[in-house]
């Protein structure tokens, strides 16, 4: 049970993130939800990559059979960078929306509906 703790956290974070996105009406809080969801998937991939007793593949003289491929870590780093870019773009959109509409409540941002 204890070793499944990261996965339990992943499920909890996913649920919290999705609930925030679906239930909150404030744009900034929705972005929080997206951030939590991104953290959930990052934690998931990092937890998958953990090998007990493994050695990071950066030591020249370590026993090579215990070295762990760093792919999940590489994936997570890429994913974090993408998450930062997305968050920045979303927040800049929120700034413009607040300037033109005077609100960040999604119920009031529906000029496009016909």
């Amino acid at each position, binding site marked *: 049970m204890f070793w499944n703790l990261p996965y339990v956290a992943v499920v909890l974070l996913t649920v919290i993130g999705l609930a925030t996105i679906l239930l909150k009406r404030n744009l900034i809080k*929705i972005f929080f939800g*997206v951030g939590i969801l991104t953290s959930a998937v990052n934690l998931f991939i990092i937890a998958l990559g953990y090998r007990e007793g493994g050695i990071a593949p950066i030591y020249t003289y370590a026993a090579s059979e215990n070295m762990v491929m760093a792919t999940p870590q590489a*994936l997570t780093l890429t994913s974090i960078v993408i998450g930062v*870019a*997305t968050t920045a773009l979303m927040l800049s*959109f929120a700034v413009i*929306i607040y300037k*033109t509409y005077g609100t960040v409540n999604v119920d009031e941002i529906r*000029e496009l509906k016909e």
Partner: protein
Amino acid sequence: MIPGFIATNAPALLIAVPLLGAFLSPVIGIISRDARALWVLAIITLTAIIGYFVAFLVYTEGTVLYVFGAAETALTVPPDSGGIPIRIIFAIDAMSALMVIIAVTVGFAVILYSLSSDSRRSGLEAYYTIFLLMIGAVLGMVSTGDLFNFFVFLEISSLASAGLVAYKVERGLAVEAGLKYLLVSTIGGIFFLFAIGILYGQYNALNIAMLAEVIQWTPLDKLALVLIIAALAAKCGAVPMHFWTPDAYSMAPSAVTAMLVVASQASLYGLFRICFTLYGMTLSYVTIGWVIIILGLLSMIVGVTMAIPQKDIKRLMAYHAVSQTGYMLLGVGVGLAVLGDQALLSSYGTTAMEGGIFHIFNHAMYKGLLFLTAGAIIYQVGTSDLNRMGGLGHKMKWTMIFFIIGALAIAGIPPFNGFASKFLIYESVFAFSPILSIIAMVVSILTLASFVKVFHSVFMGPPLPEHENVKEAPHTMLIGMTILAALVIISGIFPEFFIQNLIAPAANALIDQAGYIATVLGGA
């Protein structure tokens, strides 16, 4: 300039040229606006040449492999890696090559068009950077043979597209549309990454061919497939995840909209690639095939019925784009539903897939053309409201001719290309289930009705007094439209040539999962 060096590295250059061009274009823009325009044009021309060259290689010599950072470009499995393809691999087979052709052709036409259509706007230094970034991302999505790499390009294309949709910042509305698109894409992307994690956790591989060899259809694989289908169907605008399409398509600058259609189709390509090549025979193809058929049917019906009452010309066309995506899903879905039955597959399954794939090609051409004509009208008239247009046929003759070509093609009237692909779909889907075929035909008739209405209210009638100063669109815009219109007509008059040389190899590449695996992993 060593031709041999260029030839070996062509798949990498396909991505490198637009990306490099993208980030250098603001620097060139410091010199002058014209220098930037020439630079962007040169970059997209070079990209198009490389794209056609790669496609030519694929169609003459078979799948092109490119391994990044390896000693040899075709060395997919290094000898000391224990049989795992650890590097990022580009695997361009006939289906990818077709998508590359679509992307570079439409990309070239829209860049040419946007050089004058968007020249009045400010902030152009970022505009062309993001535009080239988006084209590069689409090319990456369709060329890659690696799941995580696909995700990265998917995210680049989402970010670039959202930025371009929101480009007309001053009105606020465009930002609303861009935000909607960005949220859908990001959440879709996160679920796609979950699916990648699930697959990686089970099989320790990210390479599509490697995964395809060992995948087993465990409950976790089913979960991964559900997440992938949901994410990519949302990205390609299939009902019930279509709500972002009308907003994003109508608010983006028209040249961007034409390219957004291609970006959506790249997601569609991803969906087909994962269903056919990654899962292949292991998934319960009848169920998944029917899921895709039903997504297609819903898209067709909801798209066309929502399109009819629209007052905004681009919103109307956007709903038609949703409805046309339904045809592609229907065609390829039927092919997937009979994947395991060789007799049915050869009697009509392959034809249905050819129809669906040919429709992807045709849709990119005529829908791009229609959005460009809509852009030309909006550029000259200054409104996108159908009720405030009229009598434009007197002033904008060429635009009218291009609109007629596009409208007849989307409605499936011979001799334009929409007819060729829709006929393949009707014929083969009728053999599968007559009702589906009849629904497809009814949707086609409604499409025609809707476009007759648009044609009448935009071009017919007496010239309106407020449009006295309206002129024909500028030349570069007309050239961009001519390229697409010529392809619509040529592929409509000689469909046999296109089907035999481009479409049939693409359909076979999707069906032939074992061939794909053998080509990619065979180098070991």
